[in-house]
């Protein structure tokens, strides 16, 4: 044998994957830390005196000073950040400046509402995109394909709120008036107790998601349908349905899955807009309200949560992309 003492790493793939995942988590924590600093600085930079927001315009200077001490606003920025971070790490997100409830308690119900909206939308987006995209690839350059391409391009080019507004106008007001234009879900109720209120917000999310994802699905399928193994399947006399679902789908899922998880991540931004269009009581509306009210602890908590969710979904996309690459 040769005196070449290089260690052989190819034969042990499992630790490598674990190490990779460990690195991702570490980077995640680091990213979130940086995000938390940014959030803190940005919210602190918002105009307006927090003590005055808490007490109203008629407060006396003494009272203002007392509140500032109580909120720790007299301390240095670093100390204030440290105080906040320690709270976040121990599960204490602070209290609302407006109604003095704990932020966690205030947001829990909102979070559930948003989650329901997001999950319902995704559950519809994925299969719908798959079907419409697949059909477009199959009927490439025909009328259906061109219509889908054109309309999805328009849907994606429009600002996010337009689709929701159009839907609300069409089905919630003058024209058909079959569905409530605003989703009034009382606090404490679970969202699915009010299915009619859910329809339009979910529809808006689904239209935006499908318009984007179905185009990615279409391209992935066109690639696969041009491959030699699909030509061979046609030459083997297999039925079109079998070719699409058994032969093309497993191969197209490779490039589609990471794209789908990215779409899920971007849906977070859509969520904020859609919730506000329909006044849906989720964290999106809570965020906009909180920004308007200068309710800093709520803004900080929501943005931090969204950053974390975004990071997780992005990492998921990476993991899935990696997995497909390794299988090739």
């Amino acid at each position, binding site marked *: 044998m*040769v005196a*070449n003492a*290089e260690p*052989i790493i*190819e*034969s042990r793939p499992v630790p490598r994957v674990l190490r990779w995942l460990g690195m991702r988590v570490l980077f995640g924590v680091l990213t979130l830390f940086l995000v938390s600093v940014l959030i803190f600085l940005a919210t602190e930079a918002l105009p307006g005196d927090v003590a005055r927001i808490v007490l109203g315009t008629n407060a006396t200077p003494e009272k203002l000073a007392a509140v500032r001490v109580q909120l720790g606003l007299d301390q240095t920025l670093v100390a204030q950040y440290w105080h906040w971070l320690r709270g976040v790490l121990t599960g204490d997100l602070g209290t609302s400046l407006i109604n003095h409830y704990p932020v966690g308690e205030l947001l829990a119900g909102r979070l559930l509402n948003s989650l329901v909206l997001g999950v319902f939308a995704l559950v519809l987006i994925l299969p719908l995109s798959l079907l419409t995209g697949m059909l477009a690839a199959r009927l490439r350059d025909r009328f259906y394909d061109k219509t889908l391409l054109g309309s999805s391009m328009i849907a994606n080019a429009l600002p996010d709120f337009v689709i929701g507004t159009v839907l609300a106008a069409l089905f919630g007001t003058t024209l058909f008036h079959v569905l409530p234009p605003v989703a009034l879900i009382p606090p404490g109720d679970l969202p699915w107790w009010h299915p009619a209120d859910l329809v339009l917000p979910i529809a808006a999310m689904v239209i935006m998601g499908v318009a984007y994802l179905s185009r990615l699905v279409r391209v992935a399928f066109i690639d696969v349908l*041009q*491959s*030699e*193994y699909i*030509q*061979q*399947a*046609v*030459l*083997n*006399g*297999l*039925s079109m349905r*079998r070719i699409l679902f*058994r*032969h093309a789908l*497993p*191969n197209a899922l490779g490039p589609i899955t990471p794209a789908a998880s990215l779409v899920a991540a971007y849906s977070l931004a859509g969520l904020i807009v859609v919730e506000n269009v329909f006044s849906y009581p989720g964290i999106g509306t809570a965020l906009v309200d909180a920004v308007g009210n200068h309710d800093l602890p709520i803004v900080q908590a929501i943005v931090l949560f969204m950053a974390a969710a975004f990071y997780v979904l992005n990492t998921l996309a990476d993991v899935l992309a990696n997995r497909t690459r390794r299988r*090739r």
Partner: protein
Amino acid sequence: MLEVRDLTVGLSGGGAEIVRGVSLEVRAGEIMGVVGESGSGKSTMALALLGYARRGTRVTGGSVLIEDTELLSLTVRGLRAARRELVAYVPQDPGAALNPAIRIGNQLAEIGDRAGAGELLESVGLPGSREFLRRRPGELSGGQQQRVAIAMAVAARPRLIVLDEPTTGLDVSTQRRVLELVRDLCHGSAMAGVYISHDLAVVGNLADRVTVLYAGRIVETGTVGAVIGAPAHPYSRALLGSVPSTRERRELVPIPGRAPQPGEQSAGCRFTPRCAHAIAECGTREPALTLAAPGHAARCLRIGERLGRTETLVLPAKETTEGADAVLTVSGLNAHYGARQVLFDVSFALPRGNCLAVVGESGSGKTTMARCLIGLHDRQDGELSFAGARLPASAGARGREMQRRIQYIFQNSHGALNPRHPVGDSIALALRHFFGLRGKQAADRVRGALERVELPERFAQRYPAELSGGQRQRVAIARALACDPTVLICDEVTSALDVSVQASVVELLRSLCEDGLSLLFVTHDLGVVRSIADSVVVLNRGRIVEHGRTDSILGTPEHDYTRALLADTPELFTAPEPGSVPG
């Protein structure tokens, strides 16, 4: 059994025709070979036999009759059934044509019945075990994949099997076994076969009858003996002249010019511009397919005339003084991939101005060896020396001068040229790197390099995708020549090319070698070796099993492995009888 009449396939837009009025008859148990260069329309025709046209093309006329079924007038459903029960297709590249995501057992079960899948695999010489059926195509070797593709094709017991260059990517011994399998299937079970290939040697050994296709037209058809023994069309003759032989050092005669593209208009015979025997009338009138002898027809105006035969020149072996002046020597070379050793104690010398061929099957280590010599394989030890100086193992440690003097040409010229640069820029880059030349000086050298590989100056402006495979390979050679090398390492440079194009590349390399360049020619094709190489190294599983002069190694091989390789290589030409006049 199969009766094709006036089959025509054109581009969907109308106008250009890829296959023009092809008529064929194949009987049960018979194999028809269809021969032509790339672009002759042979694959398009093969697909049309299954009633299939690629995207952008359309079967515009004619009939394909299999037994009593007219394939071109079937409904979608009927065609689907016909494609299982009447006609099946074996693709060129099973690696791409088998679905990577589906286990082969399931793929077989889609066409035949699941219970018979194991037995079916055994009939094509593969294990029929449950473990094997559970594998995916990616877990099989190229030969195994092609056997699976053939098993799938015959699973529903079709009456006709269409094979489109099924052995192109395989090495000779695998190729021989696949060809035997095809022959047994057709002759044994009264199935008709249509075998498409650019390789006359393969077709000559397998088929009962041969059809030669040029620019989408049949130019000659007849029994193998007639077409290969007494070709009646100048194109068939020209093709034969470009086929190498393992038995003698032939000068390969390339066909001048290039095959016409679909849509290029011509009133006369399409081969006229490349034909050595063309007369004025050839350019204006396209001849009909005329009988040259019973059962042997050709489409040539001058059929029946005794045209001067193209003499194939048998070249004398080059005089070499063994080991006297070695430009490159290798001694005790070992190489590894991870923990696996792929080269064992390889030693040989390349004499200056000689061509040394390194032959072996895939997996024999010949490409690894070439990569060791160019310095791209780090895990090697042993002694390399070049022009009397020690050659470091890594290309980075060699210094610019040594890098320049040893040049490498890859099998895949498509991957070796930057697709976003005109090819002239790719050559100029090498000139700037090694000689610091720019501007006009560089342009002059680029022109000179292209001239040496017989490409016109204007090709410098073209992008790799605009060139044919043979032209790209010439550009790659031109780039190496621009560096003014001492040694050229050629790694399977002709194996992706048609025989006629291969002939021109081989002759080019031979002329360079005669000008004093030393060549290390890595290949699996013993015919090409016989034509170009002065000496041969035979590699088997990383070890040299035989080493010597080409004439003696290929004439009187001593090692069993060399004998097996020679026996597996299809040979078109019968051994010259002593004393007979060639031609």
